């Protein structure tokens, strides 16, 4: 197996995302599988602009994994989506 590129993950830390549960995602060191964590590059991001779009039904907090943006993020969902992204 060759060396794979890390999955780029952006956690939105705009105020709306941060206060609606996004702050909990910052504890990723404590709740993510270390193997998954090692294959991810996690960084904070300014408002991704999703909360202001009327077309989407998803709500803050938003997270971008690779090129896809997901809303209504929870720690559980974050674990699941990252594991999928890393193993894809």
């Amino acid at each position, binding site marked *: 197996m060759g060396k794979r590129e890390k999955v780029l993950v952006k956690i939105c*830390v705009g105020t709306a995302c941060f206060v609606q549960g996004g702050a909990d995602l910052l*504890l990723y060191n404590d709740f993510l599988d270390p193997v998954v964590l090692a294959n991810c590059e996690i960084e904070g991001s300014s408002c991704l602009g999703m909360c202001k779009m009327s077309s989407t039904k998803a709500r803050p907090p938003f997270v971008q994994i690779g090129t896809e943006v997901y809303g209504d993020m929870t720690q559980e969902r974050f674990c699941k989506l990252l594991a999928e992204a890393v193993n894809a």
Partner: protein
Amino acid sequence: MLELNNQYTLIKRRVQTEVLKQFFDETLEQDADKIPFLIIPKERIPNRCCIYKERAMIRYRIMAMLGIDIERFDDEMKPLTEYVKEVMVKDTPAVPILTTISTACSACPPDRYLISDACRGCFARPCLANCPKDCITFSHGQAHIEEDRCIRCGKCKEVCPFHAVVHIPVPCEEACPVNAVKKNEDGYVEIDYKKCISCGRCAMSCPFGAIVERSGLIPVVKMLKAQQHVTAMIAPAIEGQFPGTLAQIKQALLSCGFSSVVEVSQGAETTSIHEAHELTHRKESGAGYMTTSCCPAYMEVVDKHLPFLSERRSEALSPMGYIAQWCKEQNPETKTIFIGPCLAKKVEAIRLGTIDGVMTFSELASLFMAKGVDVREMESADLGDTASFEDCRQFAVSSGVAGCVLNRLEGSQEVNVLPINGIDKKMFRAMKIWEKRPPEADLIEVMCCEGGCINGPGTIVKPSVALKLRGGNKAATPVKAMRDPLVRSEMHERK
């Protein structure tokens, strides 16, 4: 207590944001009744029995936010817009801080112990041997508890090798340190306001959201909208609650319409100096231990339950008291608004009379969202000269107050500090004993919330997150601050 971020707190913040948006758009007086439908749309899969009950609960949340005492003044026939019109004309009285929504209350059965199917009906039967009331019986190869004889001591639970005994509490009653939460004859929640210390633990514990705080937000936003001179007094706990530094938070407040922003830590300096003097004096005269006086829920404990401590608590005003005085001296016309994590501060504000409004961090978050203010994108406002009171930002953390007092003692004095880190039922019982047996300490720092104000009922982020974002510019780059091992080791070194 419940996890801080749960379905209920998140929906509460959305409701608040919608109400504020309508308030600033001047549509609240016509459209308030639409909000429940907006928050709970037809397609939603309900968490309660049906979307209609959920909408009714949203209606109550809005009433609580308007400051209505739901327990006493709920008129189901009255549209929200009528309530809005009333509160726009006249502010509602601020006490009692908490009110209950009886239709939200699940009327939980009394707290009890239950033996589950995990019971193997073992030969040793330690439950039977250890029950002081002889209320364990065996049938069908399993143990059972005779409800009417059980005294809920929990012995059986402790000794069962299969962990087959479960304790099913009533969350609100279990959380109340002073037994102020009771059930009425129909089994629904009621608060005994003669006993209630406004700590907010019950409201944080009820998984049905049946105990709510009556918000003081509307009077504040009315002042902002009327463009009065409004001073935001931000509590030391604010750092770490938002994705931005103190300077950015200050700028965010200014852009919401506050005329000036001061740190309550500045008042905390006066409190610490006062308490340091008092402590020295008491030690010299052999007057015995002194407790801090900045926690308003503890003040309520003393006034309502432990009057013998009224001579023991420091005579210093709380940081909020001193800073409000200072603000009024600077500008007698200014409206002083305390922004903190605390519900009991509202009681203190009424007592002092120098504070014109109290709001929580959670409510401030709704205000930021309604105004579209992103703290992270703010410029840094000038905080002024903070050198003399920078350490007082630690007032928000358990042991922090005592630390600041000790820093301000003159000369070298041997001071024995006892921090009371959270008043729960057990700690309350322990404090009762102080009357007969004084604690062996000179300075007792009392914080009603475990961990300090950063764990208060009006906070947004967990203490574990907030602690890592506090200090320096860490909150400006939250993800980096959490990741950086360097930052953490620096913190250790400083200790």
